[in-house]
Structure formats: structure tokens, C-alpha cells
């Protein structure tokens, strides 16, 4: 009780308590003086003696303060105040330290937030560890993932023993929701009814599918749609329920029009559900039966393993089941495999994410090294301060406390800045990275990551801030003081520590720069390789014709032609083409075979597109041989195909491709022309073989219009919309943009990891340069007096410079040696991301090393210059 009262008094009435103490001590002094005067001393003498006996008033006060209640709080506040004052007096050091911490912690927390959401967070399915994807792959390794035919799905489902349930689903496609006055483009997913049960996802409202819900006699495969769309019931995603139906609780049972056909809502899926096909608005159920005849690869398969079955066992079983199928001559080039669902979803994003995480970790390490360096130099330069404070009676514990407080204040400031940085970095990433990340990823700041990185930074601060200062032991204090006065050079230990820090930073930075260099080279190679067509000055837009309005191929072809005719008449339009896809965007593949080739000959998949006559002229794809499509390629007439140069070269090396007969999944076609190569996969610098069919002989509901225009293509968006509305007012125009932009979008996904890694390496280079400079500079300062002595003894400036250069060069060499090891690791990590460039590309690696050595040299030369200009007289006289 009494203590509590004292605590209150000491903390709140601090001034009065202090005044009291001051007065008490002064009164005691006066009493002592009087005592001595009474015993016969002269007044001045008495005062002197009294002062001696009292000792330092301030130190007595300090002792009293220490025993008071709340002394801990007091000391802490005092230490914090002192730290802040120190930081204010050294703004450069403080800024570097806080910024370094902020960058290191912030970047890590942000990237880890992304990585965790993609790789670690639970999938939105029940017991997701038992879910697997079954997919095909080309045995020659050219394509990692091939979709399945209905027949393949049936074969697997009938004979496998590993899964308790399997369900197929198609990729999502666009659809039109609503009627004449209100039309919205929506995403539609066709799935087998058992999908939701397999995933373990119940409906949030209503129910999921039963087998009776299957659309009878309808195959929704986008290339080979068969039969009228008979899907009568739909499931809604949570987002569609909110967005299109305003979260209407009575939505189950409501009638909706999708693609012009009335259907009934039977349920709503949970909020966090994202299907393995990606986000969708409406789900329809299909029946595998009618699709069995089709040879189109359009299905994906997901299954739930039986309890106790491993993924590895399932993979082996699926491969074995497929190998022992009834007709091994069909799809002989395809093997089947099973992978955990998460791996399938994460897919290609794993490597870039791990690369990013590694880069962020490297930045953090460099940041720590930097901080260590800054604190080390500071600690060493403060040895004298500590020696003085110890000589004046400060306890070792008191000093440690002061240093701990300083480091903590620094870490807290850095941490706060880091949080701000991480938040803004994440909101940036959320926008930029969304299309590249798997749909289940929920990008958010991870408190664990923030904590771990902050603790790491704090430990660095403590280790390097406290230890060097404390190497001044009590017994050392005198020698430390003398050391300074005598002008000795720095000791061996701090110098070695500095060397390790410099070398470490250079090694880390070299690895990161090399990685960024390789990625940049790879992107450069892919970006500068010719596309094979002229993407400038072209407007693109996408459409989807609904089945009820355009049920047949001739109906669709007629619409294509009418639209193209109208657009061609627009002033400023040079050429118009219809194609089922935009080049480089969403390519479709089909099994390719020469007619007459044996059934069991390998059947590669190649990219193909159905296009109108003017396609090649519009995109300026050169005709090499034969002709492009013309009016003679009628619907129902003999099938014709135009193939690319590389396809012709591969299968007709003698140049006799024209007139040959080929198959692309369906009926045989005659090759009538050969055109220039076009790149379809922007990730690769080279063009792949591809084939074209006429839109009159092969067409889909989805198509795009390509308009080559004079002037700005975007000026033609309105006229385009007008012309489309004149033909079919209910047909929405989707994604009108320049072809250049569409191509750019494809590259953007590839560019993102590079941009981030590049940003990290610039950051790392900056941090490392500052760190290396600081280290060289502090080395120069520490040896200033030694250099002064050397010069005074007649050593020329060049010898001093040589001394420092040799020291710096040996540190740098050690760093580069370590960097070489780091580069090997980085290269191994990056191998899968590099295209068109060797992993040990001399330009990228040489460039990285050159930049690094350049920066380090500059960081070295400035202090060297300073060292050679040391005025021996001043250096020796200093202090």
C-alpha cells in the first residue's frame, strides 16, 4: 500500500519529489558545514570539507532515485529519451537503420503474405489433402497438362480403385445472363453433378446437383458442342448471388435466363468457395454419356482419395489403368497422371513465388548485415563514450540496459515503418498479381511473418549494437580511453568482423542480381522475338453467339460475314477478320495426324484456330506458299487447312506440304497454303507449329473480331458497338481493346515476377552499396590515425591507398567467391523460368558482377580518397 502510494507520488509528482530531495541534501550539507565551523574550522575550509564528505550531490541523488519505487519506469523513460536524443543527433545513421529495417521487414512480410495465401492456406474444400487432379500429359514432354476426353474419364472412372469419387468439369466459358433489356456477361462452369460432393462442399442455400439435374443429350464442349442446351437448373456462386440477385434469400426456385434459355436456381454455394476451374457465376450439370463419342479433349477430372490411399499410389494406379486400356492405339501420345489438387492449382505460380520469397529473404539478410554494420561502427565509435561513462561510475548493467533500449526503439521505429510499407506493397500486389495467382489465394498481411522478421531484425540490432560496445569491460575502460588518446589503429577483431559483413553483403547481392539479370534476359529474349504478326493498329473485341439464336455452323458463319461486311464499310477500317481466338491469347490445341498414318503413330497436339479469309491480311501474316482461305472453302465442302511454316518444315521436310491431307481431331483436310510462323506462347521466344481452318468449316460460339484501322484503333470501339447492335441488339461486345494491349496482358503475367525480383535486387544493391560504403568509410576513419602516423613517417599517399585498396579488394573477392556459390543455387531455382537464355548466360551474370563490383568500387574509392588526404598533423593532434 505504502509502496503503491510512493509509486504514484514518484511518477506523478516527480518535480516535487525531486525538489524535496534537492532541498534535503542541501540542508544536510549546510548542517555539515555548521558542524565543522562549530568544531573550529574556518568557514571556507568547513565548506570544502563538507563537500568532500558529502560526495557528489548528483551521484547521491542518482542513488536515491534508483531505490525509489518506479525507478525502472523512470530509467526506461530516461533511456528512451536519451536514445531519441542520440538518434536526432545522428539523423543519417537513424535514417539508414530505420529505412533498412523497414525495407527488409516490409518486403518480407508482404511477399510472405502472398506466398502463404497461395501455398499454405487451406483450400476451400473439406479435407483438401485427399483431393487430387487427374490429367493427361504428352509422353514426349512437350505439354505438361492435357485435358481429357469423355472416353478417358469413363475409362478411368470405371477401372480405378484409389478414389472414392471422381467428377469431371469443363473450363469456364462466357455466357449471357438476362434478356433483351438487361444483359450481363457471366462465367459459366459445366460440371458433373458429383463435383460438389467430391470436393466436400455443401450448398449455402438450397442444394447442390443430383444426377437428375444433368442436361440430357447435351455436350457443352466448346469445340464440339452437341445437341441443344438442355440444362434446366443452375447453381449460383455466392458472388453471383450477391451481385446479380442482391443476395435475395428467396432466390432458390427463381427463374433466370442464361444464354437465352430459362432455367431454375436450385442453390447457392458458400462464400469462400472457388472451384478448381476458377471463379464462375453459374454452374450447370452435364452428362458424360452423349460426349463419349467425341474425341475432343475438354475435361478436367478431380477425385477424392479413399482414406489411407496416398497420392503416389493413386498416381501409379491411374498410370497403370490408362496403360492397360482397351484401345491403346488411341491417344497413344498421351499418358495419364494424378497430382495433389493443391499442386495442380498452384501450378506454375510456385516457382515464381519461391523465387520471390528467396529474393525477399536475401534482401532481409542484406538489411540485417547493413544494420549490423551501421551498429558495429557506431558501437566501436562509442567505445570511448562507454569508457567515460564507466569511469564515472555507470554500472555495466545500466549500460546494457541503455543499449537494449536504443536497439528496441530503433527496431520499433523500423517495424512501424515496415508495417506501413508492407500494407501498401500488399495493396499494390493485390491489384497487379490477382490475375496471375490461383483463384483461392486471399492476399493479406501475415502477422506471423511480421513477427518473425521483426524479431530477426531486433536480434541483429542487439547482437551488433550491444556486443561491440560492451567489449569495453570495466578493466578495459582505462585502456579504451588511453587507446583513443594514444591514437592507435583499430584492433584485429572489429576489422575481421567488418570484412565478413562486406563479403557477406556482396555475396548475397551477387546472387540476387544474377537472378534478376537472368530473368530480365529471358524476358528480353521473349519480348524482342518477332511475334510473326503486326499487332499495332488493330482493334480486337470478343463475342459469344448464343446457341438458340445461332444453332448451326452456317448461321454463325453468316453472322460473321454480315458483321465483317458492315465493319469493312466503316471509314478508316483497312481490313476486318473474324477468328475464334486472339493470337497469343487462349490458344486451343488439337491432336494432329497425317492422313494415312498408322493409328498408333504418335499424335502430337498442335495449336489451331479457325479464321476468316482476311485474317492473314489483317494481321499481316505473310503467305509463303499456296493460298489463304477464299470463297471456295464452303461449309460442307471439302475440308481445307492452312498451316504454318514450322509445321510444314517438321512434317514435310522435302517441301511437299501443299495438297497433303491432315486430320485435326475431326475430318481430314487438305493443306492449301503455308503462312509465316506466329508465336502463341509468349513465354517462349520461338514459334510453335500451328494450323488454321476456315471459319465456315469450323467455328465456335465464341469468336473475336480484328479490325485493322487507320489511326487510333480505340476510336473504332463505338462504331463497332453500333454495327453489332444494328445486327443483333442483344449481343454484348466484350473486352474491346487494341491487339497490342491484349498481347501485353499475356506478357504482363510473365513480367510480374521479374519486376518484383528486379525491384528487390535494386533494393538489395542500394542497401549493400550503402552498407559496403559505410563499412569502408568506418574502416578508413578507424585507421585515420594510423595513416597519419604512416604519412608522418614518410609513407606516400599511394601506399596508403594501396593498403586500403588491397584490404577492400580482398573483402570483395571473398564476397564474389561466396556469390558464385549463391549464383549456382539461384540458377538451379530459376531454371524453369528461363526461356531462350542459358542459365549461365554470360551477359546476365557478367552484368550482375560488373554492376556489383562497380558499386562496391565506388563505395571503396570515396573513403580511399579521404584516407589519402589525411593531414598527418591534424590526425595526430585530434583528441
Amino acid at each position, binding site marked *: *500500500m*505504502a*509502496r503503491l502510494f*510512493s509509486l504514484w507520488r514518484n511518477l506523478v509528482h516527480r518535480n516535487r519529489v525531486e525538489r*524535496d*530531495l534537492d*532541498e*534535503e*541534501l542541501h*540542508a*544536510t550539507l*549546510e*548542517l*555539515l558545514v*555548521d*558542524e565543522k565551523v562549530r568544531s573550529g574550522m574556518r568557514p571556507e575550509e568547513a565548506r570544502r570539507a563538507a563537500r568532500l*564528505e*558529502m*560526495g557528489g550531490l548528483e*551521484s*547521491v541523488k542518482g*542513488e*536515491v532515485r*534508483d*531505490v*525509489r*519505487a518506479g525507478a525502472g519506469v523512470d530509467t526506461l523513460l530516461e533511456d528512451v529519451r536519451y536514445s531519441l536524443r542520440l538518434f536526432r543527433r545522428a539523423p543519417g545513421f537513424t535514417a539508414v537503420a530505420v529505412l533498412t529495417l523497414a525495407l527488409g521487414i516490409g518486403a518480407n512480410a508482404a511477399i510472405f503474405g502472398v506466398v502463404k495465401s497461395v501455398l499454405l492456406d487451406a483450400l476451400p474444400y473439406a479435407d483438401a489433402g485427399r483431393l487430387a487432379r487427374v490429367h493427361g500429359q504428352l509422353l514426349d514432354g512437350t505439354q505438361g497438362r492435357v485435358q481429357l476426353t469423355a472416353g478417358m474419364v469413363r475409362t478411368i472412372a470405371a477401372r480405378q480403385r484409389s478414389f472414392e469419387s471422381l467428377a469431371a468439369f469443363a473450363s469456364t466459358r462466357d455466357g449471357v445472363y438476362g434478356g433483351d433489356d438487361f444483359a450481363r456477361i457471366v462465367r459459366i462452369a459445366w460440371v458433373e453433378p458429383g463435383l460438389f460432393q467430391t470436393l466436400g462442399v455443401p450448398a449455402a442455400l438450397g442444394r447442390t446437383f443430383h444426377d437428375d439435374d444433368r442436361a440430357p443429350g447435351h455436350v457443352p464442349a466448346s469445340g464440339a458442342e452437341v445437341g441443344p442446351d438442355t440444362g434446366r437448373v443452375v447453381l449460383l456462386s455466392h458472388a453471383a448471388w450477391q451481385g446479380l440477385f442482391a443476395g435475395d434469400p428467396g432466390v432458390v426456385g427463381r427463374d433466370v435466363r442464361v444464354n437465352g434459355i430459362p432455367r431454375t436456381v436450385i442453390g447457392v454455394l458458400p462464400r469462400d468457395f472457388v472451384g478448381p476451374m476458377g471463379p464462375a457465376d453459374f454452374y450447370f450439370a452435364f452428362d458424360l454419356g452423349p460426349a463419349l463419342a467425341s474425341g475432343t479433349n475438354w475435361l478436367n477430372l478431380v477425385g477424392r482419395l479413399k482414406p489411407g490411399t496416398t497420392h503416389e499410389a493413386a498416381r501409379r494406379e491411374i498410370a497403370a489403368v490408362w496403360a492397360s486400356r482397351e484401345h491403346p492405339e488411341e491417344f497413344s501420345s498421351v499418358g495419364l497422371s494424378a497430382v495433389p489438387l493443391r499442386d495442380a492449382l498452384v501450378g506454375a505460380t510456385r516457382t515464381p513465388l519461391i523465387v520471390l520469397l528467396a529474393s525477399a529473404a536475401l534482401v532481409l539478410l542484406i538489411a540485417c548485415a547493413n544494420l549490423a554494420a551501421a551498429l558495429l561502427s557506431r558501437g566501436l565509435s562509442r567505445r570511448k563514450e562507454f569508457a567515460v561513462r564507466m569511469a564515472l561510475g555507470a554500472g555495466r548493467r545500466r549500460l546494457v540496459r541503455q543499449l537494449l533500449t536504443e536497439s528496441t526503439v530503433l527496431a520499433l521505429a523500423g517495424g512501424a515503418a515496415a508495417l506501413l510499407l508492407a500494407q501498401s506493397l500488399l495493396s499494390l500486389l493485390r491489384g497487379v498479381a490477382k490475375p496471375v495467382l490461383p483463384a483461392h489465394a486471399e492476399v493479406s498481411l501475415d502477422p506471423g511473418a511480421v513477427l518473425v522478421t521483426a524479431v530477426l531484425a531486433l536480434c541483429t540490432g542487439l547482437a551488433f549494437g550491444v556486443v561491440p560496445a560492451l567489449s569495453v569491460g570495466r578493466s578495459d575502460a582505462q585502456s579504451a580511453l588511453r587507446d583513443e588518446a594514444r591514437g592507435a589503429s583499430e584492433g584485429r577483431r572489429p576489422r575481421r568482423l567488418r570484412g565478413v559483413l562486406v563479403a557477406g553483403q556482396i555475396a548475397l547481392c551477387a546472387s540476387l542480381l544474377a537472378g534478376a539479370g537472368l530473368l530480365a534476359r529471358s524476358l528480353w529474349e521473349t519480348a524482342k522475338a518477332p511475334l510473326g504478326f503486326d499487332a499495332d493498329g488493330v482493334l480486337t473485341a470478343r463475342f459469344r453467339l448464343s446457341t438458340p439464336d445461332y444453332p448451326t455452323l452456317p448461321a454463325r458463319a453468316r453472322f460473321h460475314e454480315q458483321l465483317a461486311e458492315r465493319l469493312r464499310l466503316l471509314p478508316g477500317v483497312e481490313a476486318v477478320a473474324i477468328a475464334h481466338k486472339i493470337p497469343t491469347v487462349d490458344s486451343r490445341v488439337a491432336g494432329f495426324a497425317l492422313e494415312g498414318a498408322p493409328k498408333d503413330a504418335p499424335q502430337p497436339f498442335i495449336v489451331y484456330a479457325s479464321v476468316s479469309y482476311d485474317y492473314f491480311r489483317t494481321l499481316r501474316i505473310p503467305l509463303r506458299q499456296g493460298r489463304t482461305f477464299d470463297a471456295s472453302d464452303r461449309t460442307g465442302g471439302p475440308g481445307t487447312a492452312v498451316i504454318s511454316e514450322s509445321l510444314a518444315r517438321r512434317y514435310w521436310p522435302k517441301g511437299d506440304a501443299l495438297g497433303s491431307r491432315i486430320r485435326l481431331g475431326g475430318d481430314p483436310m487438305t493443306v492449301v497454303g503455308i503462312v509465316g510462323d506466329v508465336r502463341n506462347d509468349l513465354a517462349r521466344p520461338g514459334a510453335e507449329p500451328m494450323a488454321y481452318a476456315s471459319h465456315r468449316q469450323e467455328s465456335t460460339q465464341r469468336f473475336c473480331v480484328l479490325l485493322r484501322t487507320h489511326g487510333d484503333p480505340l476510336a473504332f470501339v463505338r462504331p463497332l458497338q453500333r454495327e453489332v447492335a444494328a445486327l443483333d441488339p442483344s449481343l454484348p461486345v466484350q473486352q474491346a481493346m487494341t491487339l497490342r494491349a491484349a498481347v501485353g496482358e499475356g506478357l504482363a503475367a510473365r513480367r510480374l515476377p521479374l519486376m518484383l525480383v528486379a525491384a528487390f535486387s535494386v533494393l538489395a544493391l542500394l542497401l549493400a552499396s550503402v552498407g559496403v560504403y559505410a563499412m569502408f568509410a568506418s574502416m578508413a576513419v578507424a585507421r585515420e590515425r594510423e595513416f597519419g602516423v604512416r604519412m608522418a613517417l614518410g609513407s606516400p599517399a599511394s601506399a596508403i591507398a594501396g593498403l586500403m585498396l588491397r584490404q577492400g579488394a580482398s573483402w570483395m573477392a571473398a564476397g564474389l567467391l561466396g556469390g558464385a556459390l549463391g549464383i549456382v543455387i539461384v540458377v538451379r531455382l530459376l531454371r524453369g523460368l528461363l526461356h531462350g537464355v542459358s542459365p549461365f548466360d554470360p551477359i546476365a551474370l557478367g552484368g550482375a558482377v560488373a554492376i556489383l563490383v562497380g558499386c562496391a568500387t565506388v563505395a571503396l574509392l570515396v573513403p580511399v580518397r579521404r584516407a589519402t588526404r589525411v593531414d598527418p598533423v591534424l590526425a595526430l593532434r585530434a583528441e
Partner: protein
Amino acid sequence: MPGRRTTLLQGTLDLLILKALSAGALHGLGVSRRIEQITRGTFVVQPGSLFPALHRLEEAGWLASDWQPSENNRRARYYTLTKAGRRQLGEETAEWNQIALAIALALEA
């Protein structure tokens, strides 16, 4: 005998201060002189030890203090034993006697 130093046993100083104040209120210097006097000069308490101890004992609630005019007609801070302090003195005295007896026995053995 100023200047003569005898290391105080841990806890002895508190006991001495309490004892010194048991006869009545004293200011800081008075406590110091009183200790010198009752220990016949064996213990000289330096201000650097005395004042922290006084404040510590006050905060523990064993001493109370107030400002009174001193013998040289200035204001000085006078310390008195509180009830708790008197109790504490009794306890510590008993404890000390026990220890002293034990040590004496040990040394005679």
C-alpha cells in the same frame, strides 16, 4: 573517526537506521552521527548509502518524514519511526541477536 571504513553487512544498515531513530526524530545527518555515536565510531555511514536507505525505508512504510526547523534554524527533513517501523525493528533485532549468538557460538566452538 571519519574516513574509517567498515563494510556493513547486508541489511545491517537498515537495522542501524531503525535503531538510531527509535529514540526520536532525526534528520539525515543526525541519523549518521547517531549511528557513529551508538556504534562508538565503528560505522560511518556515507551520504551515498544513507540517503538511498532512508528513502527506501520510507517507501517501505517504516519511516515517516516531515520538514522541521533544525538546530541551525534552517529547514531539515526529519525522519521518525512508524508503527510498522517499530515492529520491523523488533523483528530485525530478534533476528540479529539470533545470528550474533549463532556466530558467537560457532566461533567459540
